[in-house]
């Protein structure tokens, strides 16, 4: 009589997934500083629970991949109706949920080792849980407003975690920079939300035909604005502003590299599972809205075209800058910028499934790379400069092996590694885009660069001889830190096979197809051959420059910098974006603030003095009214006001008691006037 239940999580209970880590965060917040094991235990247990629930939700979503299962509820009364929020379960939510919970869980476990000597250990787990919870809330939201709420909470948690070592001024500054930069983008996002709410009357994504992503609503937005854009284009681009900020896209990418000031597990979380993934997810979620203007011919620009261009610029720029960085985490940070550019590019050229595929594979191998970097940094006594490392391969075998897998996945080494397949999907989509070939070329150029800088990173850190005492003393870390690396490495390989062109299962499920239509790998494989050649080119060049003759001393010149010193110097200074912004936006806002403060002191305060004089005269008005009779009208009052104003100005003694006397007197007079006036 045994019946096997393949349980699944229904959409009504989806709130449990973010609620579990939120509860862990509350526990972490309320335990005293000594409750280290409790805080970490609660965080890890809750995340494991959330992972299991996410898997159950995935089962439920895959049972009906085409359906958007929703559960909407009222948040509060507003006018004749209510402001409604909702939960949403579809394959996009479910796949993302499994990835976020799994990667977060491994990062949490890694953190128990990495942070074990930190005095604020329990607070760290509290913030990590909050971060993951906000991200999960964002995934399950069926309302742009609820998504925005969680979006801002993701920003808060990243602020707290980037500035976790708050006693370091650089960390505190980086945290603020991240919050403010992303908030600039969020203002656009907010305006987009307001616009949608105003025209559509709702912010629910799916609501039985009335949601903002459903065809009736999208048809509402096809009209042209006075500027020539379609309404949906303008709204889409405003929402895209939020994604630009959150996902580190050009021109708001400047916060992401600075976010390295946080502890390394935080970097892993930001760069893989949470935060930056949010922007790409948002674009995938609102893709129907972004693509709503595609059918319109006579508009100056389509929303997706802008997305594709921003993505292409970001992909190329990030890869270029990464070539010239020396901090291990900074190289990885710019590689994230570049990879996020690929994802945006994919969305822009119309293949959001390729973007999500790359988002998922990237999450695993980038978490792997960051945790690997954390393992290196932890072992090498917090040395992060790749020139001052070296020779770690024999000392840290597990870290090296797993890091190498992550590196090959990121570089897109063919066939075995997941990054190859997902990047291939993006390049393929860019190739088929009929608006412009430039995104494709930018993507291909970034392929070479990616392979180059990753080879450089691995060669400098793991090969050659140890160049400093820190690197010399390094040794492999505890299993709490290496076990997550191994698991992530496995995923960095296996995940690619979910979406190969021969069997694009993931893409099909995301699109809601129950059947998978693949084609032979050889069919139309010209592009793939090109990209394989480019990867080989990058790897070869990297090895030739950095691997063949490893750097002897930490101070030795960089071979690439020796060949193109000015280019590398410009790239090393990150193309001067920070300086440019400080000189323009920074100056402008500071100057405007100074102007406002000047007005406060010299102009508006002058108005106080003026009006203080008028206040004095008010007593006069009352008295004159009394003398001339209440109903004599204002004209006579103002006339007598003129006569005696000179005398009254002498009463401006500055003596507060005097004023109070006047005040009391005026008050009594006032009563008399009114009573007499009324009695008459």
């Amino acid at each position, binding site marked *: 009589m045994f019946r096997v239940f393949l349980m699944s999580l229904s959409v009504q209970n989806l709130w449990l997934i973010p609620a579990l880590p939120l509860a862990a965060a509350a526990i972490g917040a309320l335990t005293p500083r000594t409750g280290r094991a409790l805080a970490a235990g609660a965080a890890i247990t809750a995340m494991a629970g959330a992972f299991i629930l996410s898997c159950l939700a995935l089962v439920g979503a895959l049972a009906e991949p085409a359906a958007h299962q929703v559960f909407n509820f009222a948040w509060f009364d*507003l*006018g004749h109706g209510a402001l409604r929020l909702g939960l949403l379960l579809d394959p996009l939510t479910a796949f993302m949920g499994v990835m976020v919970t799994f990667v977060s869980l491994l990062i949490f476990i890694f953190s128990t080792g990495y942070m074990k000597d930190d005095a604020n250990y329990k607070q760290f787990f509290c913030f990590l849980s909050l971060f993951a919870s906000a991200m999960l809330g964002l995934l399950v939201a069926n309302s742009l407003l609820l998504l925005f709420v969680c979006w801002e*909470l993701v920003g808060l948690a990243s602020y707290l975690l980037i*500035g976790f070592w708050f006693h370091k*001024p650089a960390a505190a500054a980086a945290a603020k920079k991240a919050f403010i930069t992303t908030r600039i983008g969020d203002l656009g996002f907010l305006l987009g939300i307001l616009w949608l709410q105003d025209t559509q009357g709702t912010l629910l994504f799916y609501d039985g035909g009335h949601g903002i992503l459903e065809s009736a609503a999208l048809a509402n937005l096809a009209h042209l604005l006075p500027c020539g854009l379609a309404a949906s284009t303008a709204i889409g681009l405003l929402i895209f502003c939020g994604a630009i900020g959150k996902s580190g896209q050009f021109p708001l990418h400047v916060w992401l590299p600075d976010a390295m000031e946080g502890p390394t597990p935080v970097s892993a979380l930001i760069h893989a599972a949470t935060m930056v993934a949010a922007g790409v997810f948002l674009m995938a979620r609102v893709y129907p809205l972004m693509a709503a203007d595609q059918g319109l011919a006579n508009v100056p620009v389509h929303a997706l075209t802008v997305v594709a261009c921003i993505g292409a610029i970001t992909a190329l720029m990030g890869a270029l800058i990464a070539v010239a960085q020396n901090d291990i985490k900074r190289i990885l940070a710019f590689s994230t910028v570049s990879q996020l550019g690929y994802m945006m590019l994919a969305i822009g050229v119309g293949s959001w499934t390729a973007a999500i595929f790359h988002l998922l594979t990237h999450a695993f191998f980038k978490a792997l790379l960051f945790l690997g970097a954390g393992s290196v940094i932890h072992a090498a006594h917090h040395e992060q400069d790749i020139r001052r490392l070296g020779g770690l391969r024999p000392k840290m075998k597990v870290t090296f092996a797993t890091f190498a897998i992550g590196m090959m996945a990121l570089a897109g080494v063919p066939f075995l590694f997941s990054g190859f397949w997902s990047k291939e999907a993006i390049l393929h989509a860019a190739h088929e885009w009929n608006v412009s070939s430039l995104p494709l070329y930018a993507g291909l150029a970034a392929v070479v660069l990616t392979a180059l800088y990753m080879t450089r990173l691995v060669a400098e850190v793991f090969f050659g001889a140890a160049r400093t005492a820190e690197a010399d003393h390094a040794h492999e870390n505890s299993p709490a830190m290496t076990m997550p690396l191994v698991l992530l490495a496995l995923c960095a390989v296996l995940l690619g096979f979910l979406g190969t062109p021969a069997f694009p299962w993931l893409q099909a499920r995301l699109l809601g197809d129950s059947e998978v239509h693949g084609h032979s790998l050889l069919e139309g494989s010209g592009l793939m051959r090109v990209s394989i050649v480019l990867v080989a080119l990058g790897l070869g060049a990297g090895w030739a420059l950095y691997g063949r003759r490893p750097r002897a001393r930490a101070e030795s010149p960089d071979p690439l910098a020796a060949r193109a010193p000015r280019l590398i110097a410009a790239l090393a200074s990150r193309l001067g974006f920070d300086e440019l912004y400080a000189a323009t936006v920074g100056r402008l806002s500071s100057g405007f603030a100074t102007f406002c*403060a000047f007005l406060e002191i010299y102009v508006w305060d002058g108005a106080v003095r003026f009006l203080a004089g008028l206040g004095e005269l008010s007593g006069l008005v009352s008295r004159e009214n009394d003398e001339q009779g209440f109903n004599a009208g204002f004209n006579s009052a103002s006339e007598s006001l003129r006569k005696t104003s000179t005398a009254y100005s002498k009463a401006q003694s500055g003596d507060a008691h005097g004023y109070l006397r006047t005040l009391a007197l005026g008050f009594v007079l006032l009563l008399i006037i009114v009573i007499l006036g*009324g009695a008459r």
Partner: protein
Amino acid sequence: MNLPLLSLLIFTPWAGALLLFVLRRGLSAGLARALPVVFSASTLILGSLALGRFDPAVTGMQLSENQPWITALNVHYHLGLDGLSLLLVLLTGVISPLALFASTRSVRNPAIHGALFLLLQGSALGVFLALDFFPWFVFWELSLVPAFFLIKLWGGPGATRAAYQFVIYTIGGSAFLLLGFAALYAAAGTFDFTELAALTHSGALAGKLGGGFWPQAAFLGVLLGLAVKVPLFPFHAWLPPAYAEAPTGTSMFLTGVMSKMGAYGFLRILWPIFPAPLHAAAGPLLWLALGGVVFSAFAAMKQTDLKRMVAYSSINHLSYCLLALFAVAASGPANPAATTAALSGTILQLFNHGLSAAALFFCIGVLESRASGLRRLGDFGGVRRAAPVFAGLCGISLFSSLGLPGLNGFVGEFLIFRGVFGLAPWTAAVATLGLLATALFLLTFWQRVFHGPAAGAGVNFRDLDAGDLIALVPLIALMFALGIFPQLLTGLINPLITAWAATLP
């Protein structure tokens, strides 16, 4: 039992003030500190009773008390309460005891201080409950006297000048308010707000006021009086010195409760009685409110005195309320959904700003008391290391003030922006600059004071003690509760606002 609940609300604090004043020499030190808080807390208890009897579905006045007072003048002692008044009464009930408790622990001469504070509290409640201009104006003006002495006698070094400026500026405004109402009274023969509004609604008032200049003049007088009180930019210059020089508890009350009186006047008096002139003037007023949002937020960025910074932030927050109100007044009934959102947001913002600004002034008071009076941005550093609990709670207050979702401030600001965007989109777009600047200076506050290496007065900073927690934790708890369940407030006001939106001219 038919208690005159609203009279009790107003006069219990006054009775306490009288008692304290009479007994000022006979009281033990402990009693002199405890009694004011007890009397102050009466508002919360009686306010909860009123909440229990309040029916949100009724959009008119409830629990009314109406007695002829000066028959010759047709002056009535008329009190009443709707959702708006109730919310502000509850806010007073939450903020006042905490503010009094926060200052009474250390203040000199606590009996007199408590008496003045209770006098102030009762006056504010009178303003929120009176429905006849005569008693209303008495309460309105009477509130200035205790506020003046609280600032002058217990305030900082610049207190005398600040108190003088505060009183004179406000009285200057009130004089015009009085003249405006004198004109109204002369025309209509009544001081009753509801009757005046009804006369306006039927169109009779305009006829009685005579043509031409008179309706505008009366409107301008009332507008000016209220504009100074809110304050509407650029009539705000009295506010930063007054808030900055006042002692902590008084700052909390000024920003938490008293700053709501002006906005309340706009909603209760100006808008119902002068809808047509307000509609005509709303365009320029909208620009002024927008100026308040943007200019005060940017001016706050350049303040080094933390109290002045938060004072400018208060102007910014209240300007959002006026922005929404003027947007509604300017647009008329064109977009009812946006109108409801804007008005709901305004009222929520009044309540939420009361909580977060009071909490911030309390936190600055903590900084001040631990650093023997220092409260400049550069006087501290790394406080979070020595005082993590204080850093956490102050941080929550800061994020509540900058409108972080999940905390109370977000809901009101979102609704205001949602409404204003529907009514005047470009205004909403420009106003987002205020949001950005607010984030900038509040995070600068947190970063400079709490982060970095321990420096200045931040070295060996003493964390919050039990008394501090008693004052701060209720505010923080409310921030979370109202951020997650805004229905707690909107449930009380939504029918009222829906009715307002439906009767727009």
